[in-house]
């Protein structure tokens, strides 16, 4: 029941935030912050009462009761649709990340939102609820429902509180996700129908559908439906074009949520559903997926360098970084998968920080154009130091989380597809080029006397410091995160072992 309470809490919290605006304009952000922290505390309490060994037990992917927690309520029994939520180490990790970045998002737009703050905070909380639902839903029908639910508040965040081109960006975001989501719906229905032919009864439950021997030619198309939906979200080259627009136009909190967690739902979907449900089809498809990943790494890095808009640059760097996730997932050995999971967490933090930086700059300077910045270090050394930190994190400096992620992906990938590893490693040069270029254009150079701005205050500095500590921790002692994800990855890897292209070392 805890999981249902968690999601319901966030949804109701959104309503409270919405109506609290009538009491006081300042109240919604406090409500929203309190709700998120309480939700986090709730998870912490829940985890504390679990025996410590349960985190290292390998969950049985076809039996929900072996997971940390499992909830199944019948919903539409005629079609085997149930309200089924379950959590294992991987989903726990992502749910915690979601709530933490939720706090960051709320903090990052603390003073930015003047128009209808209640509705804004409600949308933030509802999109958190949708994302958490995606990470927990184990019934494919319910999964699709949450997949769509998380889309709407984000659409509203962009369309209402976005910048100059918000209508276009929001529409583009919506159509890309919606269209690819429909492909996934087709796949989901086909899966249930095919499984019913084989098993004799309808079920949309993940636990029933795993390991069903689908007809191989049909499996390929079903896999493709999932793949496109998830890689649009990830986003992978060449489905990424909605992202720079959406990121650039979204309000800071929207960018933080979008980059920090919404993108991770795509990676999560691939890891949880797409590959385990269709192992053979995925295996055949792996070289293409990896080629897309490698192309994304390079293409994202080159285009990031070409940008003059701070937020667009960071958006393209996300495309590049998510390429590593795609590579890691389809390399499918332990190191690469752990790297991909690590990248979800580390990129979530580092990019959230960079978007917060972008928001802070825009709030102060009323522009995102880097050609109009320069020499900002002089006035705002604290902002400069933060920007420098997250820039070197994003270029993969060892000792910070992103390096651990990228190194694990690449070392795992090298054992499977050395040439893709070579191409992706070249992306590290590109990362250095665009990250340092960004710092040069904004904080270095001759100070412009017309651009006088306030440095970070306590709230912003505190938020930034928390993210820095998180990245250093992930970079120097990532083991807790690795240990949390390990049993889950072990359980998923059994669906696809010792295959020529996806086996690899270890």
């Amino acid at each position, binding site marked *: 029941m805890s999981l249902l309470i968690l999601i319901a809490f966030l949804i109701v919290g959104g309503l409270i935030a919405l109506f609290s605006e009538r009491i006081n304009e300042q109240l919604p952000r406090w409500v929203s912050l309190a709700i998120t922290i309480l939700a986090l505390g709730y998870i912490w309490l829940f985890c504390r009462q679990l025996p410590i060994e349960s985190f290292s037990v390998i969950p049985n992917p076809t039996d929900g009761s072996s997971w940390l927690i499992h909830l199944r309520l019948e919903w539409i029994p005629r079609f085997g649709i149930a309200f089924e939520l379950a959590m294992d180490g991987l989903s726990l990790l992502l749910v915690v990340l979601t709530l933490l970045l939720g706090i960051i998002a709320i903090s990052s737009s603390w003073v930015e939102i003047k128009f209808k703050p209640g509705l804004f905070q409600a949308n933030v909380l509802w999109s958190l609820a949708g994302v958490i639902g995606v990470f927990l839903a184990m019934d494919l029908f319910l999964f699709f429902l949450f997949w769509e639910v998380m889309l709407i508040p984000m659409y509203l965040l962009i369309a209402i509180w976005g910048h100059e081109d918000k209508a276009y960006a929001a529409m583009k975001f919506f159509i890309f996700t919606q269209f690819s989501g429909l492909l996934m719906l087709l796949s989901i229905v086909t899966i249930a129908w095919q499984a019913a032919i084989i098993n004799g009864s309808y079920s949309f439950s993940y636990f029933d559908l795993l390991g069903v021997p689908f007809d191989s030619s049909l499996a390929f198309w079903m896999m493709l439906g999932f793949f496109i939906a998830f890689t649009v979200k990830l986003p992978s080259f060449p489905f990424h074009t909605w992202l720079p627009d959406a990121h650039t136009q979204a309000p800071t909190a929207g960018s933080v949520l979008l980059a920090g967690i919404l993108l991770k739902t795509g990676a999560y979907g691939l890891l949880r559903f797409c590959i385990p449900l269709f192992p053979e089809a995925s295996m055949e498809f792996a070289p293409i997926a990896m080629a897309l990943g490698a192309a994304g790494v390079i293409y994202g890095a080159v285009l990031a360098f070409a940008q003059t808009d701070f937020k667009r640059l960071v958006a393209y760097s996300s495309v590049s970084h998510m390429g590593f996730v795609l590579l890691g997932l389809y390399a499918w050995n332990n190191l690469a998968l752990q790297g991909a999971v690590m990248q979800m967490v580390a990129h979530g933090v580092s990019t959230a920080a960079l978007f917060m930086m972008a928001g802070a700059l825009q709030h102060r300077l009323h522009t995102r154009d880097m050609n109009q910045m320069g020499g900002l270090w002089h006035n705002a050394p604290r902002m400069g130091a933060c920007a420098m930190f997250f820039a070197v994190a994003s270029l993969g*400096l060892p000792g910070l989380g992103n390096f651990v992620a990228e190194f694990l992906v690449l070392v795992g990938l090298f054992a499977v597809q050395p040439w893709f590893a070579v191409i992706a490693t070249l992306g590290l040069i590109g990362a*250095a080029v665009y990250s340092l270029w960004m710092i040069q254009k904004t904080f270095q150079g001759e100070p412009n006397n017309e651009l006088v701005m306030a440095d970070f205050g306590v709230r912003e500095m505190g938020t930034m410091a928390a993210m820095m500590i998180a990245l250093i921790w992930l970079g120097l002692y990532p083991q807790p995160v690795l240990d949390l994800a390990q049993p889950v990855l072990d359980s998923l890897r059994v669906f696809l072992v010792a295959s020529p292209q996806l086996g690899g070392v270890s």
Partner: protein
Amino acid sequence: MNLLWLIPMFPLLSAVLLIVTAGRLPKQLVAILGAGSVGAAAVCVALLANDFFADGQIRELTLWTWIALDNFTPGISFYVDGLTVVMMSVITGVGFLIHLYSLEFMADDESFSRYFAYMNLFVAAMLLLVMADNLLLLYLGWEGVGVCSYLLVGFWYRDPNNGKAARKAFVVTRVGDVAMALGLFLLFTELGTLDIQPLMAAANNQWQVGDTLPILATALLLGGAVGKSAQLPLQTWLPDAMAGPTPVSALIHAATMVTAGVYLIARTHELFLLAPPTMMAVAWVGLLTLLLAAFAALAQNDIKRILAYSTISQIGYMFLAMGVGAFSAGIFHLMTHAFFKALLFLAAGAIIHCLHHEHDILRMGGLRKRLPVVFASFLIGSAALAALPFTSGFYSKDAILLSAWLTADIGPILWLGGLLGALLTAIYSFRLVFIVFFGHANTEPDRQPGLKMSIPLILLCVLAAIGGWINIPLTEVFASPPSDHSLIAHSVEYIGIATPLLGLLIAYLLFLSRAMSIAKLTESTAGQAIQGFLRSGWRFDALYHYTLVWPFVGIARLCKNEPVDQIYNAIVCTLKWFHRRLIIVQNGELRWYATTMVFGIVIFVAMILRHSL
């Protein structure tokens, strides 16, 4: 109790403190933290070295396991043998002197605290690099020093040129780092570990001398080494890196970081010994770089650029030594080079400091009497650099040349090349001394270096002069016995001793007594062209600009507006086109609706009829 971890901890802690307090500490405290932390580390290293000389024990320490996944278990762990002790002594010893010097050199800088934060961070990263017991931790230090180098080269961030030099330094070395990372992937995939000692053992077990895999792996590691050590073809970043404060150049771009490539090869020498073709490549890279950079140094007029090219050239000697298997000699030269090149850079810094930031040697002159301490430093430093007899540089360079001579087949060629380099070294170093310190004065110094600058200079003078007699404990590290130089004909040794003296003589005739003149040559058109060619570092920058930078920027500009979006826009356009066509049909005219309806019915009926017939 094993206190190894204290050594990198001191500077790291100080760096963190200085960063967190962000310049709010009083200057006095910053000075104590900044220089004191490195001094404390130096004291610890001295104690460690003392113990090490007594028992010769290898010391290991694991702080924690960094990552543990299957058999991928790199730790935050240290491995200290003779080689490490030598490197740590150089880093903390020379590093401390440079920090001390910086106290005065940077005293008036508004970012005094930021400077020491970066410098301390650098020392910590460099210590991690040499102390690491696995290649992943080594890579952490490797990239860490790279970032510190970037931060310090671009320290005076207001001038965009400094930022450009800093980015160039980072990106060019990153090209090498990518090769090195690939080498790490290959080594782990093939041998299943990145811990250096087990890795060497596994390589010796699984691979034969001359196998493809060790050649490939060492070639990739070599890529990293040439990037970091500014060797061909990635040497272009170092002369520009002189944009940073001069003590930075002394510490990072002379004494420590740029020699990391040499250290990497020495550390993994067992692997390199399995790959004779790579060893050959190392020797050739070293030889070509040392000649190319020595020629370039001859044509420079900026005092720091002369020293920068000289550094590239001297590291070329170290690579030559590595390539011919004379690892001890290479590390020995690394150490003596750290002494005399740090000395030269600090002395150059003193000149720049006292001469209103003047860099051009042609506008100096006659400083012998005006800056006596600096003159003495330069004299000793240049003598050691030119390898005049009984200076520290003489012993190390001599050992390298003799080892080169003994190499099979191409030994005499390598030796002759190295000798030519030594001749050029003597010429350019004394050209610098004669032009700057003799002749008539062009610029008057407005101050004298104080105690904090003089003491490091004097101590480094002593080291540069007698450092050649330090006995470094490397015999255990490099198992292969050092080549026996007693077999070499005495004539070879005599030529080696005489060459630098000949160079000194040439420099004297050209630049001091002016008995010989090359004015005619340098003023001719061809002479000018050659000078320009050499001054630009053989036009490597232009080459890379047109073959790499320009196409990259061009492609980026071309793609800036997202070509992939054209596909989606095309879909949208197609839909809109149909939309407009269909919209015509709905025009609200009854006549038109009736006509189309009749047409529709006719077609419908026709189809039914056709079907039923």
